[in-house]
């Protein structure tokens, strides 16, 4: 049962992350075309090789996104998915693409997450008030609109802070360990010239002295929004052997979702990545000690710590000690988010969650210049959407 590992990521392309975008604004369809063109070149494949597509909704066409993208790029696809898992969408796209390839539905799939700003519409529509709470639904009949929003539990910061406080009351909380995640990842970002914080290292004290946003989360423990965007291309075994890069096989996957609002989670401190990672490990025949790099979705420091615990790298409640005992940099004993993660490189919309699989791919291909982990063959990559609402995990392995 599960993936056998014949499908592989063979190419990737991404824009430089920028806090204030300096280039020409582009429609998402234009970004899809540009990024796919670049990724095909990097892989050494032709457009005609692609016969599968995984996407998220696009602003130009919130419904019918796959056929709109296929038409714009001139693709003829036998497999199309709109993956709606928030920050877990990119990891969710990749395992769905691998599964479709293994089923023989298609031979090569492009998965994308553009996130550059769109051109200004000279004829804008009136502002839609139902969208004024970000990703929190304010629509009539949405449980969030009725039972979260009126109490101010809106967007992400409060929800993740609630998780961190519950963890603190249950297991204890070492704020220096949490801050170390941000500091170590920022060290990694110094080797990534596409990171928004390249050139700006920080230490633990910098994190703890930064502004408190929602107790216990400081602003340097929260991702910085930015522009960016990325795609990856997966291919079957036959095509992968024609590609110029070392193929990066998807050998295991898992996914779990139970609640939209963390308020109703059975236990706020036990996250869905546990069963997702357990499934990915079991499918691939790997165990946590086999992992060379952990590329963990990192909207907040607490997300990384809980991912380390719940994926089985240490026991529950021992995450802070584990982080203190390990160097999380690319040179360290337990490399995490070697590109800087989203905390160090910025969160370019949904492409934030694509940055983790792309970094694992670059590490395994051996092209992570300036931050390469020696002999990197196996990665655990996770994605997180909402307020720990949904989490996905994949194991990536070099051939």
């Amino acid at each position, binding site marked *: 049962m599960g993936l056998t590992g014949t499908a592989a990521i063979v190419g990737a392309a991404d824009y430089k992350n920028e806090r204030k975008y300096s280039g020409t604004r582009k429609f998402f369809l234009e970004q899809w075309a540009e990024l796919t063109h670049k990724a095909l070149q990097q892989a050494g494949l032709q457009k005609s090789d692609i016969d599968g597509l995984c996407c998220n909704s696009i602003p130009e066409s919130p419904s019918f996104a796959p056929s709109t993208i296929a038409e714009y790029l001139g693709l003829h696809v036998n497999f199309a998915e709109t993956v709606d898992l928030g920050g877990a969408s990119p990891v969710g796209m990749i395992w769905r693409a691998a599964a479709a390839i293994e089923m023989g539905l298609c031979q090569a799939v492009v998965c994308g997450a553009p996130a550059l700003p769109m051109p200004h519409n000279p004829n804008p529509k009136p502002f839609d008030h139902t969208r004024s709470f970000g990703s929190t639904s304010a629509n009539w009949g949405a449980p969030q609109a*009725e039972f979260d929003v*009126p109490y*101010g539990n*809106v967007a992400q*910061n*409060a929800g993740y802070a609630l998780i961190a*406080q*519950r963890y603190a009351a249950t297991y204890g909380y070492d704020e220096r360990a949490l801050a170390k995640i941000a500091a170590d990842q920022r060290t990694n970002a110094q080797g990534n010239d596409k990171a928004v914080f390249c050139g700006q290292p920080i230490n633990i004290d910098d994190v703890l002295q930064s502004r408190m946003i929602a107790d216990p989360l400081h602003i340097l423990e929260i991702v910085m929004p930015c522009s960016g965007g990325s795609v990856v291309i997966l291919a079957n075994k036959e095509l992968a052997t024609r590609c110029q890069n070392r193929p990066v096989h998807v050998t295991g996957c898992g996914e779990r979702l139970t609640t939209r*609002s963390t*308020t109703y989670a059975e236990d706020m401190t036990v996250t869905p990545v546990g069963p997702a990672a357990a499934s990915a490990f079991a499918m691939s025949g790997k165990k946590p000690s086999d992992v060379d790099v952990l590329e963990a979705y990192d909207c907040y420091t607490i997300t990384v710590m809980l991912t380390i615990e719940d994926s089985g790298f240490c026991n529950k409640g021992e995450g802070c000690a584990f982080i203190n005992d390990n160097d999380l940099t690319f040179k360290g004993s337990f490399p995490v988010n070697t590109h800087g993660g989203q905390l160090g490189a910025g969160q370019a919309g949904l492409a934030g969650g694509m940055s983790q699989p792309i970094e694992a791919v670059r590490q395994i291909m051996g092209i992570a210049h300036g931050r390469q982990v020696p002999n990197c063959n196996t990665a655990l990559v996770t994605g997180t959407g909402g307020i720990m609402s949904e989490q996905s995990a994949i194991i990536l392995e070099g051939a």
Partner: protein
Amino acid sequence: MDLSKPVPNPTPTSQPYWDALAAGNVKLQQCDDCGSWVFYPRSHCSNCLSPNLTWKTVSGEGEVYSFTIARSPTAPQFAGEEPQYIAVIELNEGIRLNTVLTKVNEADIKVGMKVVPVFHREGDATLLYFKPAS
């Protein structure tokens, strides 16, 4: 952007909950078939999917399951209210809900703190806030 405070827009299913709050009562649905308490209000039991749910008046007493103190407004509509004492309460019946803590010293807010309901008027709506039990 509409900067007015967001208030609930009840549905036919949830209307009894909000009507009870307006009258100073906390009502929850309980499943006639499996006995589970259900929150938020639903058409079917979230434990067994039975449609046989009955509204029952409860004490509204419980404890803080978790909390945060938002130093920066969580949305522009809450500007000027910081620090927001956002909390999740676990009622004695075991269900959890979002709330705002009121009439409390910031330093006293703890996970496990016993709380009782405060029926807070917000425009035409009544929200369920909580304060320390003692």
